[in-house]
């Protein structure tokens, strides 16, 4: 693709760019960002009019569950990647809780191989321990060699502090970011939602926020001890935000993400036993939602990820206690971010773009998430004011498990380009086609 995206508002947080400009793509890479990159006589250059649109780095979701191998009825790498592209994401990091778990080189290679067929950038995250059992360290070096981008214990948090310490030490030697799901399982046994007045009234077992916060503190202390690159996954409560803010202030190398559900919904969403509001960490309280927003605004929370967790209907059309945890998120993240954070003025559009692209790319050490000249042409062209009504039946994902079905939101990805190729959507107007090139 040799193309010019003309007249859009270019937001490239990594280079502090937010202005009307043209973006030139050549051989799958960004070839230029500027005013009136001249095209009139350029040979074979396709020119697209994207005025009125935002042109931003393709989004990076550092937290998705693609279910392959093992649960292809819920999602495949292909369907998950299609959902990602539809939502504006050009890079996704696949969590290792597959079957078999991504705890060895062959599984990592498999995910990367299948990912390469999708058109977008599918990264693999290795398990910290064998079979994600939290006991013996997995072959992290082998997986790093195979191309694993990070390690995580997501879904099966390591309880034993010594095991976590060793994993952190070993991962830091390999330069791998350590992504942790923070939960003290002894405080959350059989629980299905946040513990508080809502669980008390619903008569459902609750997990206290303390179960998350205590492990956030533990992992911060161990990161300080080991010097690893710690990243806290899906921060859901006020206590975690406070812990991370404090750690950052004291110079600990820690980053974190939250997900749209945690700045949008509270545990009241479970009052009528909607299993699509069941997730882990659970939806918390209004106070927590406010703290998450404050953490996003002041930079404590670096990134927005989705924790995209597709499930089949039969996993959710059951009693609350038997229902699977998790919701899909790739196709609603952009519009929830705009509607819940940008429209009310909590984040600027540029800050929102940063948390969806350059920040997660930086945490994972990628050359993506930016429109810098020479970097891969991963671009999302979106309309922040386009109204969308969420219709789960139209998702590219196989998962329909969203609590946002029927919501009317703002913000829609119109076209998504990954490594210079159009992977989703289309351009509304093709203004002109040049015949010769002039530099």
């Amino acid at each position, binding site marked *: 693709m040799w193309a010019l995206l003309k007249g859009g508002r270019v937001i490239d947080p990594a280079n502090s760019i937010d202005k009307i400009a043209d973006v030139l793509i050549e051989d799958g890479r960004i070839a230029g960002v500027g005013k009136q990159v001249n095209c009139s006589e350029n040979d074979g250059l396709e020119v697209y009019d994207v005025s009125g649109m935002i042109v931003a780095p393709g989004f990076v979701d550092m937290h998705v569950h693609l279910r392959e191998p093992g649960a292809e009825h819920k999602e495949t790498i292909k369907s998950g990647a299609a959902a990602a592209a539809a939502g504006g994401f050009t890079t996704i990091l696949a969590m290792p809780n597959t079957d078999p778990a991504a705890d060895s080189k062959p599984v990592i290679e498999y995910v990367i191989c299948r990912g390469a067929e999708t058109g977008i950038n599918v990264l693999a995250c290795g398990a910290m321990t064998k079979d994600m059992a939290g006991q013996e360290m997995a072959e992290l070096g082998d997986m790093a060699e195979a191309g694993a981008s990070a390690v995580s214990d997501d879904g099966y948090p390591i309880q034993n502090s010594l095991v976590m310490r060793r994993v952190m030490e070993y991962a830091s030697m390999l330069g791998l970011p350590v992504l942790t799901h923070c939960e003290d399982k002894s405080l959350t046994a059989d629980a299905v939602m946040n*513990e*508080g*007045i809502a*669980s*008390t*009234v*619903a*008569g*459902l*077992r*609750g997990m*206290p926020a303390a179960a998350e916060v205590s492990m956030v503190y533990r992992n911060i202390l161990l990161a300080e001890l080991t010097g690893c690159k710690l990243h806290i996954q899906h921060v859901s409560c006020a206590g975690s935000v406070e812990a991370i803010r404090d750690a950052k202030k004291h110079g600990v190398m820690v980053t974190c993400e939250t997900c749209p559900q945690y700045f949008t919904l509270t545990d009241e969403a479970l009052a*009528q*036993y909607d299993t699509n509001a069941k997730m882990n960490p659970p939806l918390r309280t209004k106070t927590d939602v406010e703290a998450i927003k404050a953490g996003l605004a002041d930079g404590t929370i670096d990134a927005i990820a989705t924790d995209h967790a597709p499930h089949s209907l*039969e996993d959710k*059309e*059951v*009693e*609350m*206690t*038997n229902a699977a945890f998790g919701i899909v998120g790739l196709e609603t993240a952009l519009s929830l971010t705009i509607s819940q954070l940008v429209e009310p003025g909590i984040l600027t559009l540029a800050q929102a773009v940063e948390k969806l692209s350059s920040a997660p790319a930086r945490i994972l050490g990628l050359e993506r998430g930016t429109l810098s000249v020479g970097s891969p042409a991963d671009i999302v062209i979106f309309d922040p004011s386009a109204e969308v009504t969420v219709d789960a039946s139209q998702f590219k994902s196989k998962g329909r498990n969203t609590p946002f079905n029927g919501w009317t939101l703002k913000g829609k990805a119109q076209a998504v380009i990954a490594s210079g190729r159009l992977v989703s959507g289309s351009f509304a107007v093709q203004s002109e086609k040049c015949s010769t090139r002039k530099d």
Partner: protein
Amino acid sequence: MDKLERKDILGLQDMSQSEIQLILDTAVSMKEILARPVKKVPTLRGKTICTLFYEPSTRTRTSFEMAAKTLSADVTSISTVGSSIAKGESFKDTLLTLQAMGIDAFIIRHQAGGAPYFAAQTVRGSVINAGDGMHEHPSQGLLDMLTILEEKGRLEGLVVTIVGDILHSRVARSNLWGLTKMGATVRLAGPKTLLPLEIEKLPVEVYTDVDAAIEGADVVNVLRIQLERMNSGFFPSIREYARMFGINKERLRRAKPDVTVMHPGPMNRGIEITPDVADGEFAVITDQVTNGVAVRMALLYLLLGGSGNVGTA
């Protein structure tokens, strides 16, 4: 109000004062039927009721069956053991299968809070919650209120103290919603480990000192300590529980002189309640059982029978 404008009875939290009043009034006329020599009216003839129990139960299930049979409904009973549930059939499929057989009302007990909500959305027929996890047990709440009403002639202005394992108790939750809607003051008392988090945000008074909670109470409702809680670290020993939270004669002296003592059963005599109190002059525990049948008749009648004279139909 002379009709219930609802398909299901899922809990007392979402029920209005006038609905509760209607059910209690109807239960009083039902009780009259139970006092007759021939305890049968044809009101629900041709209706089919299914009790679907995912948890063991003696009194609630029998009580619903008695209520249905007294109203001449046909009753079929399904429990986890010996049904397709044991073969792994999903709750949804079990419900749809029963619906296809023409069940008019489902009486559901389930260990999962909210399961009756799921059922109510799945089937066209009525669903009555016969106890769901730690959530609600509306017919128990109603029969407790009927019993208090019989003893005291009113609910408004009374002080009702509920003692014991509040955390796991659906009886406590249904009682607190029902009683507070009817104008009573509800006090909840138990060890801190068995009081659910943030319970004080509800319109109740919360105590860990049972003596203080009983002071001046009109009614003391004693909850069962379930055997499986006894060894899960909620309290150090049965001995200590009985000493600190058990209801005995001496402790009961702090209540009003005409205090009414209730227990939803089954009782652990000597643990949460001493035998002399359970069998004593203030206890109305067997009246609760009788009232349970009357209340459940009222629920079935109001949901399925709709109109018509109960006495002569």
